């Protein structure tokens, strides 16, 4: 009796145990799948941060110091946020779609900046493929923060020109219960953690109204941008940038007045979708208030300033010092 011929199998596969084949297959596909899932969590986080109503107390750690703050946020079309210090000097920031108001009790000043991008608070860029060239996205397991289950999402930069992030996202709402900004080597620079957080049905206007200020505060308010729309880079500008980190593209360009000095400044925004830097250029002479010369930083925010052809150039961003330095040194005036 003749037997049915057996279906030939691949010789190599036949020598690999099934469990190992499954493992290899899983390893092959898990990386992009995990990256996609991590990115989906970040997308959910972005929507939660902007759209939900919430209030809470959080601690912010930087340079070995801890500060306590309170935040109340109304999401959606009529976005508005109020942040104030619970430790240190009494300060308060209210932001909405019209601008930012900083109330600084230690200097008895109210500073209003209306030269901001128009429209609602933006969502995370959706181009994962593009971002994957400059960052690795992964899931870091689960944890408990504020006695709630959280999903850990890790974003690691692929070079030294940008920072990485670590988020502990609430499994239910995807709000970041805890977050850390880290160097490319994984060293934490700043962290914040909610110590109390409530997601609300609605937020009353009264809760978003600043409580600091009054007639004994000096108010500084600069003019808005020259135009409501962003201006293409080449349009009317005398300046060019000879170095940018890989993946950094122009995200905004305009002219506007600064709140306190009233000085008109040309402003470029460059970014890779996660990291963002601003370049400010204004006319500069011996009567101008002094500008930054060289490098400085406020926590993880670095700044580099220099004078160039009767102008002052300042580069600011939540990026490493080398990034702002190289970018500032690469600014040239068009002939």
């Amino acid at each position, binding site marked *: 009796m003749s037997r049915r011929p057996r279906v030939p199998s691949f010789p190599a596969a036949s020598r690999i145990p099934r469990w190992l084949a499954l493992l290899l297959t899983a390893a092959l596909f898990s990386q992009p799948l995990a990256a996609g899932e991590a990115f989906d969590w*970040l997308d959910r*986080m972005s929507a939660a941060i902007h759209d939900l109503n919430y209030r809470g*107390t959080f*601690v*912010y750690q*930087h340079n070995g110091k*801890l*500060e*306590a*703050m*309170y935040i109340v946020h109304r999401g959606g079309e009529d976005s508005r946020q109020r*942040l*104030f*210090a*619970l*430790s*240190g*000097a009494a*300060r*308060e920031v209210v*932001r909405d779609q019209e601008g*930012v108001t*900083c109330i*600084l009790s*230690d*200097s*008895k000043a109210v500073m209003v*900046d209306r030269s*901001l991008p128009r429209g609602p*608070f*933006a*969502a*995370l860029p959706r181009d994962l493929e593009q971002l994957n060239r400059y960052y690795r996205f992964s899931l870091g397991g689960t944890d408990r923060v504020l006695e709630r289950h959280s999903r850990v999402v890790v974003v690691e930069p692929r070079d030294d020109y940008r920072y990485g992030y670590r988020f502990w996202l609430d499994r239910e709402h995807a709000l970041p219960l805890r977050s850390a900004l880290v160097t490319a080597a994984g060293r934490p620079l700043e962290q*914040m953690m909610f*110590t109390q957080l409530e997601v609300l049905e609605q937020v009353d206007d009264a809760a978003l109204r600043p*409580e600091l*200020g*009054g*007639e*004994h*505060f*000096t*108010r*500084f308010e600069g003019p808005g941008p020259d135009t409501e729309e962003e201006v293409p880079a080449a349009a009317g500008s005398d300046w060019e940038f000879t170095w940018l980190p890989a993946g950094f593209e122009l995200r*905004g360009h305009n002219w506007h007045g600064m709140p*306190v*000095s009233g000085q008109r400044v040309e402003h470029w925004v460059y*970014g890779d979708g*996660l*990291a*963002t*830097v601003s370049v400010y250029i204004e006319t500069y002479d011996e009567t101008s*208030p002094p*500008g*930054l010369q060289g490098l*400085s930083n*406020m926590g993880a*925010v670095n*700044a580099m300033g220099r004078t160039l052809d009767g102008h002052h150039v*300042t580069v600011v961003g939540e990026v490493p010092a080398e990034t702002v330095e190289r970018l500032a040194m690469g600014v040239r005036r068009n002939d």
Partner: protein
Amino acid sequence: MTDQVKEQISALVDDALPQQERSLLLARMVSDTTLRETWSRYTLIQDALRNHLPERVEPGLSQRVMAALDAEADHDRSGTARPRFAGWARPLAGLAVAASVAVLAVVMFQPGDPGPGTGVQVADAGAPPVAEDYRRVDTSQWQGQQAPVSERLNQYLVNHNEFAARNGMPVVAPHVRIVGFDQERR
């Protein structure tokens, strides 16, 4: 302030400082404002971590607490017999409230309320800024920079934060550094 002292204060807040060190540290805190402020900050943060932060604080409470504290200190110096640590427990608790009230009471100011810090020259609301006003928004810590440079950088940072929040990684509180970096603690 050395790291050792910070650790001692932290241990004090956690009620974990050995008795002898505790005694010495408390004695120093009587006359050292910086130590008291640090202790107050640590206490506030611990309260935050334990979800005990007050939402509202009665205006004027800080002055009353400080007055009570002074009275307590006088009482202590007079040599009245009582357990040293029991005697300190209340003033320290008072300090915690006092220091946090000093911060939060400002939150309670209403327009027209003179508030603390009288004697500061104030321009009319809406008056055009003048050159020397740059000092008034130099509140945040830029490493190694003088007031006018910091003031300029603060304006840039506030402006940049909004563009970064709309063009980059979403964050809960884009202006956390403007609120949280304190010039006085340089």
